[in-house]
């Protein structure tokens, strides 16, 4: 652990001043659940942390006429207990409920989970399936991009150091969604494989579908061929099994300390099958 200076701006405008003042570079501090651990292991040389966790511009979960907005500094616990998220973003609500442990869920933020860009990040996987747009500000200038486009590789994003995610915005649409993960433990485990699925059905026919798989590639995987296969169908178990096989073909997992590539590939099939069944075959 190196000594760090934590700067706590009172307003968003103070962030940009603090950033300019930090000559040797800085990091944004939100929940700190990755940042602090990394710093303890000497993985982060930045000695100035700008604490954004209390900024009201990054807070709030609001249900608009055609949009749901979640402040980037909202914690996983706040996200999964929000009625609006539960109603409109079911896959995200479930991902946040299965995320880490209760103490970590009380600290870790949605923005941090995204900016850390771990391929096994549960909330990030669900954000992609829920078609989130990230609202990003650099020195006060705001732009909107698809959240998915931020991920370039393991711990590597398209964000520049002074890009701050303010919020995520989602289309307000009634849909079904599910998030399933496989970890080394039932709770408080890093995913070996995860699947987030969001789908709209009209009269039993799939009219929109997004499938995202976590921890099975350098970034969140979108198995497009599986999505295409099911679109326009009134899917049964056989079609879902076929789609699940396509999901397994789309991933590029690795052998590491948590699991093996061969196991992860087959689990990409099993978990996406279960997720698709849960979304597409349920009767309600």
């Amino acid at each position, binding site marked *: 652990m190196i000594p760090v200076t934590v700067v706590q701006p009172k307003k968003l405008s103070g962030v940009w001043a603090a950033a300019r003042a930090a000559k040797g570079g800085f990091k944004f501090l939100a929940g700190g659940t990755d940042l602090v651990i990394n710093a303890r292991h000497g993985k982060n040389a930045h000695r100035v942390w700008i604490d954004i966790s209390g900024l009201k511009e990054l807070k709030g979960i609001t249900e608009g006429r055609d949009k749901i907005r979640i402040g980037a500094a909202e914690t996983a616990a706040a996200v999964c207990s929000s009625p609006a998220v539960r109603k409109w973003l079911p896959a995200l609500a479930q991902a946040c409920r299965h995320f880490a442990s209760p103490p970590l869920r009380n600290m870790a933020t949605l923005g941090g989970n995204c900016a850390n860009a771990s391929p096994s990040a549960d909330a990030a996987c669900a954000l992609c399936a829920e078609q989130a747009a990230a609202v990003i500000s650099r020195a006060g200038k705001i732009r909107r991009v698809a959240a998915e486009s931020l991920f370039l590789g393991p711990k590597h994003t398209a964000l520049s150091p002074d890009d701050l995610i303010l919020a995520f915005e989602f289309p307000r649409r009634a849909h079904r969604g599910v998030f399933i993960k*496989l970890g080394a*433990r039932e709770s408080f485990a890093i995913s070996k494989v995860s699947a987030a699925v969001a789908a709209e059905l009209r009269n039993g026919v799939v009219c929109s579908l997004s499938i995202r798989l976590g921890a099975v590639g350098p970034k969140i995987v979108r198995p497009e061929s599986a999505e295409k296969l099911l679109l326009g169908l009134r899917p049964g178990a056989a079609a879902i099994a076929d789609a699940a096989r396509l999901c397994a073909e789309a991933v590029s997992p690795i052998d590491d300390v948590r699991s093996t590539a061969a196991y992860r590939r087959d689990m990409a099939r099993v978990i996406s099958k279960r997720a698709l069944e849960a979304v597409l075959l349920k009767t309600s």
Partner: protein
Amino acid sequence: MSDNPLFCVGKSVTRKDALAKASGEALYIDDYSYGGMLHAAAVRSPRPHIRIKGFDARAAEKVAGFVMLVSAADIPGKNIWPVVKEDCPFFPETESRFQGETLALVLAETRLAAREAAAKVKVLCAELPFVEDPLAALEKSAPKIYGGNNVFSSYVIKRGDVEEAIRSADAVVEGVFTTNYQVHVYLETQGAIAFPEAGGAMTVYGSLQCPYYAHDAVAQALNITHNKVRIVQRVTGGGFGGKEDVPALVAAHAAIAARKSGRPVKLVYERDEDFISMSRRHPSWTRMVYAARKDGAITACKAKYVLDGGAYATLSPIVLWRGTVHAAGPYKIENVSVESFAAATNKAPCGAYRGFGQPQICFANESLLDKLAEKLGMDPLELRLKNILRPGDKTITGQVITGSCGLEEALVSVREKSGWAKRRGRLAGEGAVKKGLGVSANYYGVGLGAGGKYLDRAGAHVSVSKDGSVYAAVGNTEMGQGAQTVLSQIAAETLNCPYDGVRMTEVDTSRVPDSGPTVASRTTLMSGNAVIDACKPLRGRIFKAARELLSAKGAPEGAMEASGGEFRAGGKTVSFSEAVKECWAQRLKMAEHGWYAAPKTSFLPENGQGDAYVTYAYSANVAEVAVDTETGAVRVEKLYAAHDLGRAVNPRLALGQMHGGALQGIGYALSENLVYKDGALLNPNMSDYVLPSSMETPEFDCSTIERPYEDGPYAAKGFGETPLIGPAPAIANAVKDACGARVPGLPLMPEKVWGRLKDKA
């Protein structure tokens, strides 16, 4: 001891330390701080095997607060840590044998400065060839890191003619089984504070199980006599064997640094340092054969048992010995051949972990026994019942089992509770989930036995103050297992004093003579008997005074009832404190030392025959599991266990031992997987070394069976380790029952179960 019914032993009184630990009042080593105190941080070996050429500390010296570097050259005494084989230096001088070994310490004014400076010390070194795999280490061509053959120790047990018995058997089964490391992950990491005292003396406070090991180590490192060393245990946040040997090294490091700097020195480990360099359970490899007659009588057991000892011998010889003695399981078998080896490898030394060499071999023998049942077409639980040790039977070392043996009752208990006969092989699953039941039986030699007999004694000092309060000091430590509670109960019972009137504190080596280590489930037995020995003369005086006071109050002479801290006769009552006051008025000696030495054992290392332990604890487990056959994930839904422990001094604490031990056994069985690659530990953290959580905790159905051990305190034997030993093979056998996959290597990671199921399909 007493004709009166027991009022305290056998009762679930509240733990002595419950409130202090639950409220946060308890002070652990890192809670202490002293004026002038320096902080130490370790400089660790960067590679698995190096020649040390020196240190470049120029960058470290520039860190504000840096004070000095301490290394081998600063050791005033002999640079050998006194454990079993004396092969491990306090600080290596020319050669380091594992990645993460402490090479030197940086002392600084703050902890942050010490860590930052330690990270900046450059180790000048040349890499040497290293060996990671224990079987490869035993090959002729392996790089040699211990002796001429990398064998720390080796044992044999020979009985009858095993080859002939195998030839003439009706059924023979063979298997190779492996187990991985297990790390204690005690909540409190290792730590010590050393204080230089006048006249060259040294006092060390620490989080430890075995203060007398630290006592020996500090005396040797500083080249001072034993009477100049004082080790004081602080409230210890878990041990499980992980604070048996290695805290002596931590204490010696702090003491060497305190000697050189002339200031108090605190050395507290970070979690990853603890993972990388401290002890852990040995990985194992076992090839085993069982032979049996058609009727199920086991006629032979042949085993080769190899432990991966790591870079230094430390406790490997005695861990291996315990595993060797128990290798064939709790069965009467006429023909036995066991050979065992502890191999040296370039990884952190393995040592004690609850079960001490038995969980490994128990996984092998109990898995293979199910295979034998399958071959014979017998029910595996009935096969066990046919072969288990009963009073009068002989173990594989020829030891005759005494009356304190409740293994049969234990097996019958788990059979009945689990509904074994009706449910095994018939449990319904749902979808991809299949369910099954599996059984295991085991026995555990209580105390050090012949493997450590010179250490098997213990002292106690009991002092009764004039206000009627009692202070009991012992040489065995409280590390969460409940020693202070159980020993206080024994003192209260023996003195007839109220339980609340007895106080104990952590061990201080200046109060009680060397009482051996706090290991081997020996504390209740050894310190309990020592406490009784100290209490007996006090009891005589107190009881006599009480009788006199009763007479003075007009009670008739003759019998007196003594219970619950009161003495009663003829309707008159005298309290314990009144009796004590009278003793003080009579100027009687109200403090006594007690001592207990374990009975002699007759074991001969040449052939492995003779009495190995003074007595055994017995247990049986049935695991009920659910296997997701698509993912390979195993969930233990219910665990039935029964333990013969002689007598439960505190039934609630005994139940706690059963639950906690079983949960560690479940972690060992399913998820705890330490991964080494090229001599480097890849997961020194709690996110990737996966312990079971409350979500993995099954429903427990545990019970005690009390077959009194006459030499034990109030007939108790130790049993703290047995709950961990049986669950893993019971789970593996249940997985086989559920889905047909026999996984011969622990842990049963989903990847392995999935792999087996795929191979089968």
